[in-house]
């Protein structure tokens, strides 16, 4: 069949029409004979993205029997999908269309009308050349499982589960400990800024256990994860009975929490278990249980040191939550034991949450002593420190509290491997994008929440949990099918030597070896179509659909004509 390419240039009001000679472009392209016997229909229209414009385009595609479509308009970010949808209503496959960004890349950046017209001409020519080599692609929707697996039953995991169950999603929580609640469960209401009732976490646990949509496996660990967004196959094992349970779900939320940094003698912290040295977890547990604050000898302490930033230098990051916890700790101790003298050794005070500054002000006014230091160490309960001016000193205390940094939980590396999600330079799980997509990961369908992603307080952890739940609720709809990216990469098996280069460069794990046949196979459901593997293939066996060599070569050639 002879190709008949429709080239429609949008005037975009004065944005394109006022900056180029559209009639000149139309005449030039209509008379252009560089594409052999390809028939070109070149027209302009006021606003193609308007409803009338879309209807006009749809009618033209149908009435003229166009085989390909090029739209000269704005950035594909604005209206690529608009015109794709128009094609979808007609006989024309949406992948036989291309938008050419005349506005952002020509008329808005070139004041000289002649020059803008020239550039628009070559840009459109390149688009026509490319579109002629594009092939039809068909989106094939797949069934999806709307159920969700939550790994970790701390507050973040529970909050996510509850948000999902609220929309009648089936949720399974797999928790490795024998209780739900995680760290916050041990603190009971201590760290909750908004609700101070100690039974808050217990209430959350009760709600979870009583919810028919939520299935909880305690003392269990996930051992196998296969699949992709919409269709995951999971195996988890009971640590006690060793019974393996199989589970199917569409998405996974990782809420495995964090651990506390452990001090080392090399970094100057020398003390034994019999010394009255406690980390933030231990002291807050003591405080929230309502127990007396006593030394191991049974006496009440007269002096307490709070040492900040423990592990910060070694780890290279600020945990951002310890200062708040320690301000609260100091205030709670002061409220119950006004006579205890508290000294805080700090480098910087970091109080990001709302109410943080007030806690600091309260500590100051209740007589807590603050000493700004460069570095700290410990020998038993004697704090060694170097002051800001370089003076070194040491001071004995009855009790020492360490504001230890948060570090990735021990399970993080194994889970990272299992779920195929990377960790960042601090060892915590890495988000898809720190700013624009902070609760998703590079593996579609796998989310990270709470402190598994980095140090954060309880309210932020819960917020991220709800964010992930929201993403899942909008991404995987019950009864709706998922349309995987179709412009993905395929392997031309005859050319593949099975060298495995592509396996190494693919961060999504979308390529796997077929050892029996000695070739590599692309799992198109996971592939995102970046084309990196193509660049790594020595035999040209990979083909990124919709970005093939011939398409780009023709585009280059025609642009340079």
């Amino acid at each position: 069949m002879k190709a008949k390419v429709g080239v429609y240039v949008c005037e975009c009001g004065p944005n394109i029409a006022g900056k180029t000679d559209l009639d000149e472009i139309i005449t030039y392209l209509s008379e252009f004979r560089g594409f052999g016997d390809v028939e070109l229909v070149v027209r302009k229209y006021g606003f193609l993205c308007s409803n009338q414009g879309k209807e006009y385009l749809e009618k033209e595609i149908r009435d003229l029997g166009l085989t390909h479509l090029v739209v000269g308009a704005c950035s594909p970010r604005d209206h690529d999908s608009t015109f794709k949808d128009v094609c979808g209503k007609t006989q024309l496959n949406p992948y036989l269309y291309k938008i050419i960004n005349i506005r952002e890349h020509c008329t808005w950046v070139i004041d000289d009308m002649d020059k803008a017209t020239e550039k628009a001409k070559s840009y459109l020519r390149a688009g026509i050349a490319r579109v002629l080599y594009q092939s039809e692609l068909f989106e094939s929707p797949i069934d999806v499982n709307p159920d969700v697996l939550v790994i970790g039953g701390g507050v973040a995991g529970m909050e996510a589960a509850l948000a999902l169950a609220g929309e009648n999603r089936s949720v399974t929580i797999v928790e490795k400990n024998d209780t739900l609640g995680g760290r916050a469960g041990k603190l009971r209401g201590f760290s909750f800024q908004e609700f101070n009732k100690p039974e808050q976490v217990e209430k959350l646990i009760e709600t979870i256990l009583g919810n028919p949509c939520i299935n909880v496996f305690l003392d269990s660990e996930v051992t196998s994860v296969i699949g992709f967004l919409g269709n995951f196959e999971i195996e988890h094992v009971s640590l006690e009975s060793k019974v393996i349970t199989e589970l199917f779900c569409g998405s996974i939320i990782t809420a495995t929490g964090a651990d506390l940094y452990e001090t080392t003698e090399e970094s100057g912290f020398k003390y034994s278990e019999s010394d009255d040295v406690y980390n933030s977890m231990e002291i807050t547990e003591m405080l929230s249980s309502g127990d007396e604050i006593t030394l191991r000898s049974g006496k009440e302490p007269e002096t307490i040191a709070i040492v900040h930033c423990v592990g910060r230098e070694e780890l290279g990051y600020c945990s951002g939550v310890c200062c708040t916890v320690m301000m609260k700790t100091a205030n709670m101790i002061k409220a119950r034991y006004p006579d205890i003298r508290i000294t805080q050794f700090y480098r910087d005070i970091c109080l990001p949450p709302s109410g943080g500054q007030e806690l600091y002000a309260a500590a100051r006014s209740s007589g807590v002593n603050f000493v700004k230091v460069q570095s700290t160490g410990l020998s038993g309960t004697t704090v060694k420190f170097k002051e800001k001016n370089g003076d070194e000193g040491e001071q004995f205390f009855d009790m020492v509290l360490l504001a230890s940094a948060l570090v990735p939980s021990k399970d993080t590396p194994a889970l990272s491997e299992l779920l195929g999600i990377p960790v960042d330079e601090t060892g915590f799980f890495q988000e898809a994008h720190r700013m624009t997509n902070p609760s998703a990961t590079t593996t579609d369908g796998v989310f990270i929440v709470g402190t598994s992603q980095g140090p954060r307080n309880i309210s932020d952890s819960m917020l991220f949990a709800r964010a992930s739940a929201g993403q899942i609720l909008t991404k995987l709809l019950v009864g709706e099918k998922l349309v995987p990216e179709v412009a993905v990469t395929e392997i031309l098996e005859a050319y593949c030597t099975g060298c495995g280069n592509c396996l190494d460069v693919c961060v999504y794990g979308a390529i796997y070896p077929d050892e029996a046949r000695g070739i590599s196979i692309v799992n198109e459901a996971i592939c995102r179509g970046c084309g990196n593997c193509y660049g790594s293939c020595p035999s040209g066996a990979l083909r990124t659909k919709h970005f093939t060599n011939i398409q780009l070569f023709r585009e280059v050639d025609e642009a340079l004509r």
Partner: protein
Amino acid sequence: MNKEFKPRITSFLCKWCSYTGADLAGTSRLQYSTSIIPLQVMCSSRVDPVFLLKAYLSGSDGVLLGGCHPGDCHYETGNYHTRRRFALVKEVFESLGLESERLKLSWISASEGPKFARVANEYTEEIRKLGENPTRKSIFL
């Protein structure tokens, strides 16, 4: 130098950063050289060394490859691969006695419209000094 010489710079821009940066140059109405011919790829790592050669041998006076800043790749590590492959092509160019200055790699983020315009202008000037691609119309690929 021939006053009529109008450099033509084939630019492969990744969809997520550099192409969007070029869009921003547009929405900010920044004027830059008309020499730039922007072509979109999903990731700079899609631009395999053959593309650069192809663009060069097809008569581009310069070839610009734009990607996300290291660490910011939409596909995680794509641009690190790009960087290595690009270094390789540069070396191949040099050992073949071709002008490796005709190839340029630049990291331009989606928010760096001004940088896109600046790179476009500066590179155009560099190419203008180098003159026309000497292989133009004499070697075909």
